[in-house]
């Protein structure tokens, strides 16, 4: 009895609950899947993720990924949730559209620059200098699998139902422009 009473003092208190359990108003256990990634000093992070995805769905997603990738998963979910709350129509697809547009512009610029360089090098080809080969395919990226959002960007080719392959990124940590 005394032992039980003594041990009762070691049970997790509400002050040590993670942000998720605080919001969900439940006890935060030692095996809480959210606790490592939603610290109590970042309540807004979980609030946003919960609002967009729901705690249950986030939990299922985390359970499906290896433990060493869960932090990256949480951060990307937080990013998506933030984007969706800021832009309820396009979410982070808006950012993708802008980047795609930029990519097309730069590919065009690259093609022009290379064509100019090739033109400059043609007169030199007859001399000792080697001609510069223009590889139009380098840097060209196909985004045929992007969804068709008519108001977003004409470079979106096909509907979301035809999305087939997304290459996973391994170096999430660098994120130069997002965080």
């Amino acid at each position: 009895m005394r032992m039980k009473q003594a041990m009762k003092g070691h049970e997790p208190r509400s002050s040590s609950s993670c942000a998720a359990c605080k919001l969900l108003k439940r006890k935060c256990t030692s095996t809480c899947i959210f606790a490592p990634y939603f610290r109590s000093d970042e309540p807004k992070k979980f609030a946003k993720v919960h609002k967009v995805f729901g705690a249950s769905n986030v939990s299922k997603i985390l359970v499906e990924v290896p433990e060493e990738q869960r932090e990256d998963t949480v951060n990307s979910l937080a990013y998506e949730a933030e984007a969706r709350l800021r832009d309820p129509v396009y979410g982070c697809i808006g950012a993708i559209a802008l980047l795609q547009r930029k990519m097309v512009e730069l590919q065009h610029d690259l093609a022009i620059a290379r064509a100019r360089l090739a033109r400059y090098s043609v007169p030199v080809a007859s001399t000792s200098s080697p001609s510069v080969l223009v590889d139009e395919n380098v840097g060209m990226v196909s985004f045929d699998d992007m969804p068709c959002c008519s108001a977003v960007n004409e470079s979106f080719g096909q509907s979301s139902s035809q999305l087939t392959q997304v290459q996973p990124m391994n170096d999430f940590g660098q994120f130069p422009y997002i965080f």
Partner: protein
Amino acid sequence: MSSFGRCAACKYLRRKCPQDCILAPYFPSSNPQRFACVHKIFGASNVTKMLQQVPEHLRAEAAECISYEAIARVQDPVYGCVGIITQLQQQIVQIHSEIMKTKGEMVAHHSAHPQHHTSPQQQGDPSQFISIHQQEQNNFQSDKHLSGNF
């Protein structure tokens, strides 16, 4: 919609599809996988709330984007469509670097062989290439905030 059968959402949720089902216009029964992904990632209740918050004329776009995000997350549970953003950013950096390199070669070539540029358009001060460099760098820098204002 209900006169033609249930929409994909109501079929998935095993419920009646009412006349005013908010999901029906965007999740036709012909594409059950799409709603299955959306339900898995966001949940029917959240998607309904998201669509209700958006003006009706924008709901089709919103549903399309939500579906795309859900499918991307199902395919890549760790990064979802954030992985696509990172990929695009890296490719943009690479292409920009190629442009700078190519224009650097042009400047070098122009300086080495000014006599080869016979047309009036091709002649001129090599510093015009540098100003193009700077302009593009400025454009590129201004785009860096695209995804970073959170």
